């Protein structure tokens, strides 16, 4: 299996190193372009005014927060089934970025909610499930941080991710149901007016920027994890010029 060749940390380390600058550059360029489109070119929303422009950061962050958790769970599955070492490291490397994305989504949402809904926080289904997603990230990070043995940490984290990813849709629908029971649809994002084409373009460009950033950050982080984990091996010592 040629794909499994890249599953060896030794092969992956230099490859990730070559990929990081490209994704970082893409993140910067796309981010700049997206901000220009979003804050310069997109029209003012006739209902919300200028405040809607937070969606150019808010929506990509919320998407990434959900997506990264699923990616981590896929790596978790690899860790459990094939016991590949790199997959556990990838889950670890992605977690802080995912938590950051969830936090950005919540923070920008609160900033947007104050002028629009009149409150920083409402117990809307999306808000609540994003908050719970943030707790799932924090729980994963706390678990792997508490376990000293890296192999045990990888596998325990992977199992937690799998349990979590099964629960995420259940949590989402339960919270949605709970909310509709308590109060009739007070605020709904799904009923928002149709979006202008420039708004959509800006949002998509920003999404790709967030995507590139997340990949760059995760690859950069996984390189540190690989070095730390494999510091006693010959290839790391050779690379770092440590006397044999």
């Amino acid at each position, binding site marked *: 299996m040629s794909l499994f060749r890249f599953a060896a940390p030794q092969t992956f380390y230099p490859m990730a190193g070559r990929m990081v600058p490209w994704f970082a550059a893409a993140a910067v360029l796309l981010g700049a372009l997206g901000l220009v489109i979003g804050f310069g070119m997109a029209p003012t929303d006739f209902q919300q005014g200028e405040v809607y422009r937070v969606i150019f950061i808010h929506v990509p962050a919320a998407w990434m927060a959900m997506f990264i958790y699923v990616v981590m769970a896929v790596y978790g599955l690899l860790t459990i089934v094939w016991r590949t070492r790199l997959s556990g490291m990838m889950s670890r490397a992605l977690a802080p970025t995912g938590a950051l994305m969830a936090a950005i989504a919540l923070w920008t949402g609160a900033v947007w909610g104050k002028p629009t809904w009149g409150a920083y926080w409402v117990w809307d289904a999306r808000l609540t499930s994003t908050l*719970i997603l943030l*707790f*799932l990230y*924090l*729980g994963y990070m*706390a*678990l792997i941080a*508490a*376990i000293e043995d890296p192999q*045990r940490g990888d*596998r*325990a984290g992977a*199992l*937690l991710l799998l*349990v*979590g990813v099964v*629960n995420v849709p*259940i*949590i989402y629908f*339960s*919270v949605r*149901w*709970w909310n509709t*029971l308590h109060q009739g649809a007070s605020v709904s994002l799904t009923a928002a007016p149709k979006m202008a084409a420039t708004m959509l373009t800006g949002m998509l460009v920003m999404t790709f920027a967030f995507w590139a950033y997340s990949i760059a950050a995760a690859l950069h982080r996984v390189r540190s994890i690989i070095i730390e984990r494999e510091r006693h091996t010959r290839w790391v010592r050779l690379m770092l010029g440590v006397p044999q």
Partner: protein
Amino acid sequence: MSEPPRERSPGEPVQPGEWGLLQWALRRDLRLAMRRRSDVLTVLGFFVLACSMFPLAIGPQREWLMRIGPGVIWVSALLAVLLALPRLFELDHGDGTLDAMLASGHPLPMIVAGKLLAAWLVTGLPLIVLAPVLALAFSMPAESIALLVASLLLGTPVLLGLGAVAAALTLGLKAGPTLVTLLCLPLYVPVLVFGAGSVETQSAGLSPAAHLALLGAGMLTVSLLAPLVSAYALRISVE
């Protein structure tokens, strides 16, 4: 089982079938719980005290208490289960019994299933028995109380099953008990929503059947999977 049952000497190895194994673990944990009654009573005491704090905090108005009763009792039951979780595998881990269980070659999920059943009998069931008394203190009407008991009957096994996975994953860690809380609470959200929600729905004049059906589905799924996943988690933690 062709051999007739006979008296076993204490040191003689047991060769039970799968169900025998479950029974063995169940009996053993029940006996251990009976010898350490204070552990069980601590959880129940916590449950009652936690519920009693709410009227003291918000005031004794009957309408308020009726309104928050189901939610308060559900949250307190949930926290009481959390309190009981670290004990689930810790004693066996501490004295090496767990290592022996893992090394015995017997199917670990059956042992874990027995342990979970025992844990539910000594923590879940007493909570459910106490819940109506607390519900009366919150002036809840009889039909709400019946529903509360039904929802707790279906919901507490889910809490315990999900919690067992977290307890197994954090076994032997210094931060274990705190960590269990952090890992479990997000996963408990649906149980709480459907459990407390069922009573709310009935008070609002709607049928709670959907809530109970979803809780029941969760209960069946978790009862089936929790022993398997917890056993796997134990292997990760101990090996």
